[in-house]
């Protein structure tokens, strides 16, 4: 097989793994609460910064600081949902978009105020490392993120299917009134769901930190990609984020190799638009449709 083609596909799959890792939380939050979280990229940013500071001050490896990012983001997400977003649940969806956009502006700009607009990066011993197999280069750090995405999708599925809290979350997603009558504390479940979504997003931000540029303004583009990924895979369907991420990653990678890098972004949005118009339920046809 053509080496360039094979390398393109591998790059695409690894990129897709990264996309899948940071989009799963977006899908969870939308699936359960119908909230399109426009501050999603900021959660990634906070996760990446947690790793950055722990690396800078304590020389802690980003993979070891990931649990700290998870805990921090869980608490952050829990509080935000409990005291802010819960107050617009039940109102038209536009309220939640605008509210989370307000959060996006506040978090990003406070972060700029505290950490300045500087671009930062974490340089570990394995940051640029590649494994060469049959003349193909496989970046190490991205492969780890790919594994994390797989593991996270499985873990989330396990949590939702096999635990009592997971059952309560699924019940709330299906019918919140009936769930409430069955004794589920809806507001608490919402807060836990948002916390959980934030935690896995923070985790992905943390495991991405060895190979991405970290800056307070990084969030918005990640939010936009997460949008695309989740729509491709089917909104609210957990494994969809994985499928959508891989498809988008490969499509972008092919466009970047055979056309040019700029047009690959255009192709992302064209795919997204066509997908929504033809099949809003996503590639697997399992997403929820309003």
């Amino acid at each position, binding site marked *: 097989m053509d080496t360039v083609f094979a390398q393109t596909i591998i790059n695409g799959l690894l990129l897709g793994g990264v996309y899948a890792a940071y989009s799963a939380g977006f899908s969870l939050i939308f699936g359960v609460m119908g909230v399109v979280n426009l501050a999603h990229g900021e959660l990634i940013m906070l996760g990446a910064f947690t790793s950055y500071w722990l690396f800078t001050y304590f020389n802690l490896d980003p993979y070891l600081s990931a649990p700290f990012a998870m805990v921090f983001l869980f608490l952050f997400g829990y509080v935000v949902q409990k005291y802010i977003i819960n107050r617009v649940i039940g109102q*038209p969806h536009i*309220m939640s978009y605008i509210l989370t*956009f*307000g959060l996006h502006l506040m978090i990003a700009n406070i972060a700029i105020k505290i950490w300045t607009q500087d671009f930062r990066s974490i340089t570990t011993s394995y940051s640029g490392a590649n494994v060469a197999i049959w003349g193909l280069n496989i970046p190490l750090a991205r492969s780890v993120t790919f594994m994390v995405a797989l593991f996270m999708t499985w873990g989330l599925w396990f949590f939702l299917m096999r635990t009592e809290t997971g059952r309560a979350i699924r019940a709330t997603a299906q019918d919140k009134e009936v769930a409430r009558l069955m004794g589920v504390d809806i507001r608490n479940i919402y807060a836990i769901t948002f916390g959980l979504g934030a935690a896995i997003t923070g985790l992905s931000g943390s495991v991405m930190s060895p190979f991405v540029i970290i800056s307070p303004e990084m969030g918005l583009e990640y939010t936009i990609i997460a949008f695309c990924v989740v*729509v491709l895979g089917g909104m609210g369907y957990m494994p969809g984020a994985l499928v959508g991420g891989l498809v988008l990653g490969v499509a972008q990678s092919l466009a970047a190799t055979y056309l040019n890098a*700029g047009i690959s*972004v255009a192709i992302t*949005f064209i795919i997204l638009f066509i997908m929504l118009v033809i099949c*809003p339920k996503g590639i697997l046809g399992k997403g929820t449709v309003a």
Partner: protein
Amino acid sequence: MNSRIDRIILVIFLGITAALAFLPNFVESEYLLRLITVVIFWIGIAGCWNMMSGYTGYIDFGPVVYFGIGSYVVAIAMTKYGIPFFPSLLLSGIMSSLVAFLVGIPTLRLRGAYFAIATFAFAEAMKQITLEFDRTFSVSFFQGSDGITLPISGHDNSFFFYCVLPVTFLVVLAHYFIEHSKFGYGLKAIKEAETAAEISGVNTTANKLGAYVSSAFFLGLFGAIEAYWITYITPSDVFNVQKTVQMVIMTLLGGMGTFLGPVVGATFLTLISEALGARFVEYYLIMIGGIIIVAILIMPNGIIGSLKIRKKFRFI
């Protein structure tokens, strides 16, 4: 009672517009005239969004695409084909509404978040296409990130004031007709319960498409005026998602689906950013974020919407 209040407000509105038409004769300061023009400009743009999304409840997250198409049509018509400004302006509006018609037919079938994301995706795709088209196909048409420089108009600020004022006037007047026509009742019925509206005989597709296309027409005009005013456009400027956000926030602050909502919201936000933006540059966006959050939490219906509920006015 209500319709009498409505009529009084219409008269007041016509009076204010007529008075504004003489404004450039009295305002000495160019800065003040420019500021007033910007306020009127944003009232019109926010009004365009309100016409579609405020009344039907379909949240359009990509209205900026029609603004951008307007800017590019006027720029290409003037620089490449040498068409004068006013015919190009009309062409911008027509092109924008034509695109809106073609895009509206498939997208308006989508509901809720899906419509919002589809419109957003379309706007971003258009931005990327204008950015990368020339480089990908080795031509010189949109001129990508280099942008297009329009012919310098040589007109002063009052010229643009008189360009913006009538368009905004038409947008606000269109709101009045939406409030008082079968078409407008149809739009409101779509917002309340689309399926029920359809069963009751409202041609929902035609109504939505009508609102979408007319909003795109006016946005195209505004885009063209701004392009000629600033004389230099790039895709990342005219298709900037920030513009969409501003329209949405202005309308929401004022009150969605109300006649005066965009007027109040746009005036309020433009003046606030003028006052805060200059003095607290570093904290400005944090404050805007805070204002948005507080406004949503304490006044989910906007300034006008809250008054409307309290005073039971239909209009204000």
